[in-house]
């Protein structure tokens, strides 16, 4: 396979915005990029505090093989941001499903990274209960969020919990801290440039995007509420699930067994060596190979 990635040019936020459009869904507007003339569709769900922009390096190549649909979740990137309000995973899921319906997506592969894996798990839960009838054929999970296990909610983890919360909140404090936090989860920090980080920060700040009051607090509570629902969803799931993991992810390293891998039988794991939390930015070529192999 001949995969070409142009690592020399950094996409500006402006150019990225021009690739997509704002699609009205219920009462909000969702920034969506929909490219590639294929029947097989790859729906991409991005991570916390970044946006669909994470995929700018891989989009040209991916769209040769798939109809690629990228969206910014409510509160992120170019999508509508909420004033002092937490958009729940359940709400995000409703918006994603409505978008799939509007765009009439077919033969869907759901690719989820970080925060997006929670939305993917909620989609699986509804699919297991036959409450949605979308043609989702496969799920690919990539470097998930901090592994929250049931034990995480016990009190002796309080310090750890506070550390995680502090880290997640402090990312919003200033560009300097944001930059450092993102760099910290790369294996090779030189693989992300200042210019890219500037564009990511610009999108985060857009429309008062930093006013996500208490995001972490609500988010951890929601994960606690649905811990059992989402674990059961993965266990009972009949649709194939594949994992693509950067091996040197400090959030989810290969020394602590991946919580997802534990929950699914016969899971197919594809490791990307010398790679941190953002394989699509750090090792785009290997990442594309892994996605196309599935």
């Amino acid at each position, binding site marked *: 396979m001949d995969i070409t990635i142009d690592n020399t040019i950094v996409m500006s936020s402006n150019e990225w915005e021009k690739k997509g459009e704002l699609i009205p869904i219920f009462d909000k507007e969702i920034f969506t990029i929909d490219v590639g003339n294929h029947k097989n569709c790859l729906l991409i769900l991005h991570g916390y505090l970044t946006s669909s922009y994470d995929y700018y390096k891989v989009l040209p190549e991916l769209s040769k093989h798939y109809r690629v649909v990228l969206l910014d979740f409510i509160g992120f990137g170019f999508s509508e941001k909420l004033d002092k309000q937490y958009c729940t995973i359940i709400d995000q899921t409703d918006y994603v499903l409505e978008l799939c319906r509007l765009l009439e997506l077919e033969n869907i592969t759901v690719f989820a990274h970080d925060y997006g894996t929670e939305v993917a798990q909620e989609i699986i839960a509804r699919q297991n209960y036959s*409450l949605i009838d979308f043609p989702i054929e496969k799920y690919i999970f990539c470097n998930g969020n901090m592994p929250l296990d049931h034990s995480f909610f016990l009190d002796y983890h309080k310090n750890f919990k506070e550390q995680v919360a502090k880290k997640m909140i402090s990312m919003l404090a200033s560009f300097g801290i944001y930059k450092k936090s993102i760099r910290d989860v790369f294996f090779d920090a030189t693989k992300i440039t200042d210019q890219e980080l500037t564009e990511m920060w610009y999108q985060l700040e857009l429309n008062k995007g930093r006013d996500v009051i208490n995001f972490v607090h609500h988010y951890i509570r929601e994960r606690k509420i649905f811990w059992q629902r989402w674990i059961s969803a993965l266990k009972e799931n009949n649709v194939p699930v594949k994992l693509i993991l950067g091996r040197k992810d400090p959030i989810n390293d290969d020394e602590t067994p991946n919580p997802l891998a534990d929950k699914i039988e016969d899971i197919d794991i594809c490791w990307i060596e010398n790679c941190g939390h953002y394989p699509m930015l750090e090792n785009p070529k290997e990442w594309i190979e892994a996605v196309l192999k599935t």
Partner: protein
Amino acid sequence: MTADNWKSRGKFYTIADKNIFVIDEGSSLQTIVILHGYPTSSFDYSKILPELSKHYRVVIHDHLGFGFSDKPKSYTYSLIDQADFALQLWNKMGLKEVTILAHDYGTSVAKEILARKNHNLIPLKIKKIVLCNSSMRLEYLHIRNMDKLLKDKKLGRYIARLTNYGFRKIKDKFKNKNLNPEIHTDYDINKVWDKLDTSEGKNEIHLLSNFINERYTFWHRWTEALKESETPIKIIWEKSDPVAIKEIAIVLATENINDNLEWIENERYFSILENPTNWLNLVFNINGPKIS
């Protein structure tokens, strides 16, 4: 009516490998589905069922973890799960159009169903939603000390195990409301508690109590659902309910332009247990013979 009689009137449906207890009576083409409150069960409606089923097909199920439905061990029951189970059940029963009657805990389930309906996610037609004494608006909710203790994740399980507590709680609730002690004898209260006691129900109370957290998390989602609803909503409120105080009803009513707020002025005359005849008249405009 004893709990055993009630059990023999219904049947079990298997939804996602769990047994759900369902009462399904009446042959009308118009269907009412009932989402019961916390921490009781479908049994609350035993007195009104004979009359209501003359006018409607009445479908009442016990939520997962309540009444005669399965109580899976250590499952953290979420209101979202309860909505999923209700939707799957109604779908399996082939219901196409329903009126939803919900009470207390059930009103949160009803609001989640409404949110999905607004978001084009369910094909089920909803004719009307009737909400009774919902404690949805937490800023007005006076959580009593016992509820606080139950919510506590460490203490909750031990407190729930103090068998007498539940019995006393239900008894006090009746006493506080000055309901006629001749009707609500200790025997009746014992029956309610015995049902909660089955399948290790007691050990699960603290897990069921998790719903308070969910009401915080989904405050916006469910408020929006009411605001955006095209389905008519009727709100029936007991003015002197100590938990779901009347301010909640007023806020709920102003959030929905389709609302139709009605007060239960004097609970002794309009309680579903104490005076089912008047209750049916108020909620469904049914003027039936006197039920005792």
